[in-house]
């Protein structure tokens, strides 16, 4: 009995000690695709998150009410899996008790994680998930209360690309090859099709494949047979080079266009010269950045040796949004942060100005079109649908 009592006393003391020690810090969670099929995305996300937190801590921390609080980062890997994304969100919220979460990035991981965040009433900002479903409630189709994003959404991006293909590339006939098992690819392919047809273009082939396929020869042969002027590949950077190379081997000469899933530097490593001259839409152009962004790009290059891709820039902005809303909320409280974030005045981020509308979790911002030129992403034009 005495032993049990002392054990109880001990555990109470320990827990008191922990809370007292933890009072001066704010815990923020990150869910990133560190392993799995898109590790470059996860690495960019983690790098930018660590940089954002380091900068805030170097400046003494966040000003919350009257006291300055340091930020502590908890990074979880989702292993490129939907179930592990949800599990990581659960762990961050209940076990690590983070104040808010940034990530996951790909829509097929962000959607399951967002469900957990919403039901646990914790703010989650996804940097890179552009599928509309991420911030919408699946049953009511109304905006989720706690899930935000730092990027534009696919209906917007699909519209931008449809217009670009018709007006800039003068392509009257388009073909699409997309991963039908992935929320992002499927969503944007459908939006592109609808917009392209509405603007007077003709979709001559609308072909699908499934995640992890490596052989696209049957679909590409069908596409070749349909003689398109342009081929849209709204797929992730690890698959696009395979698709382009196989198409060229089949004698396809039409140009390719892509969406923001192309925007990783890994695309250039994997694809090389085969991708030269093609265009894609994305969130920001490193070589045509605003002054706020220039400092970020320089710091990131110094710290990690590569130019920040769009995931890095958007993650950095997601943290910027979070920091601003924590400071304006004035207290480290999940509900207060949610309220502050949704009423935040226009935020000047690395990827441009953004603001959340009253009834939406998707910021209003514009897209850029980049061209791949001599193994580099080069700014081509700004784009709005």
């Amino acid at each position, binding site marked *: 009995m005495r032993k049990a009592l002392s054990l109880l006393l001990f555990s109470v003391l320990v827990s008191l000690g922990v809370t007292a020690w933890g009072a001066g810090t704010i815990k923020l969670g990150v869910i990133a695709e560190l392993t799995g099929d898109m*590790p470059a995305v996860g690495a960019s996300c983690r790098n930018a998150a660590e940089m954002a937190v380091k900068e805030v801590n170097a400046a003494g921390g966040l000003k919350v009410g009257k006291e300055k609080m340091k930020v502590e980062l908890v990074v979880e890997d989702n292993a490129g899996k939907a179930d592990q994304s949800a599990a990581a969100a659960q762990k961050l919220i209940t076990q690590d008790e983070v104040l808010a979460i940034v990530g996951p990035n790909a829509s097929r991981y962000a959607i399951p994680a967002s469900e957990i965040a919403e039901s646990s009433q914790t703010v989650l900002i996804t940097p890179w998930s552009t599928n509309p479903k991420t911030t919408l409630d699946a049953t009511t189709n109304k905006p989720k209360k706690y899930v935000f994003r730092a990027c534009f959404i696919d209906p917007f991006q699909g519209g931008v690309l449809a217009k670009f293909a018709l007006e800039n590339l003068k392509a009257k006939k388009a073909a699409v090859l997309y991963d039908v098992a992935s929320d992002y690819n499927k969503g944007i392919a459908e939006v592109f099709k609808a917009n392209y047809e509405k603007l007077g273009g003709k979709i001559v082939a609308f072909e699908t494949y499934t995640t992890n396929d*490596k052989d696209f020869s049957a679909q590409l042969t*069908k596409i070749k047979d349909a003689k398109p002027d342009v081929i849209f590949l709204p797929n992730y950077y690890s698959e696009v080079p395979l698709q382009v190379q196989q198409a060229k081997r089949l004698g396809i000469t039409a140009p390719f266009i892509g969406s923001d899933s192309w925007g990783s530097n890994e695309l250039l490593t994997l694809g090389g010269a085969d991708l030269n001259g093609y265009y894609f839409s994305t969130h920001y152009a490193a070589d045509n950045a605003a002054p706020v962004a220039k400092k970020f790009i320089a710091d990131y290059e110094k710290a990690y040796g590569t130019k920040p891709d769009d995931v890095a820039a958007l993650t950095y902005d997601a943290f910027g949004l979070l920091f601003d809303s924590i400071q304006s909320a004035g207290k480290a409280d999940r509900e207060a942060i949610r309220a502050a974030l949704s009423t935040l005045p226009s935020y000047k981020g690395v990827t441009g100005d953004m603001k959340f509308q009253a009834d939406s979790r998707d910021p209003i911002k514009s897209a850029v079109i980049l061209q791949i030129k001599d193994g580099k992403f080069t700014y081509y034009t700004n784009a709005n649908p």
Partner: protein
Amino acid sequence: MSEGIVYWLQQTLNALQLGSIYALIALGYTMVYGILTMINFAHGDVFMIGAFFCFLAAVYLGLPFAPTLLLTMLGAALLGVAIERLAYKPLRHAPRVSAIITALGVGIFLENFTLALAPYPKNIPALLENITWDLGGVSLSSLQVIIILLSLGLMFVLDYVVHRTPVGMAMRAISWDKTFVPLMGVPLDLIISITFAIGAGLAGAAGTMYALAYPVIDPYMGIMVGWKAFISAVVGGIGNIRGAMIGAFILGGVEIMVTAFFPSTYRDFVAFTLLMLLILVRPYGILGKPRTQKV
């Protein structure tokens, strides 16, 4: 040529390329089964390691195609022998299920070992300059020609070795009877090692060709391809070398043709339904024969 014919010729070429790669891997499954009546589930991952050997030889040693291919086959063959000696030989008299679990374990080990060393997908440089010929609308790439011819060549060599040489005769004898054949002076362990070396070497060759045709490789690439090759071997009649080749070309053809006719999501379900029906009609596969148990 009319457009319809061009289209189907093109799809047939696509099917031949895919079938060739499945066939090279299927041979490894069928050979090991033929001799040990054991399904070597790590075989798909040996194929994956083959692709990574190809990456190492091409990128770090800067070798051209032919030495890369030879080195990869040799490396994979050694890996195959090592796996057999370390993981399967001690279990040769253990219950069948233990050997299967060990094979699965070896496969998972190989995947995660590679993942730990190379978490990012790797790009294989173009080892061969690709030329695409236009034959009346049908595009034929030099890579396709090499893959198909090299695979067929290797299969003919293997067929010759198994049916016309003393080593091949020893293999066939052991697959017939493991108790009495060694008593007649056939070195059991050596023949089993040779079988694993040949099977793994062919998987290495498949890995190289796959890496050239689909030059983005990752540690999990062997799982699905391995399954498909295994299924090819079963459809053709597991244990039968010619059957494995036939099964692989059937599977490759069905996959490509289903995708050509239907939406791609139908591919696996139509392909596997057809294969299951085939198995129902011929339970031992196309060329397989039931083994009679002599008492």
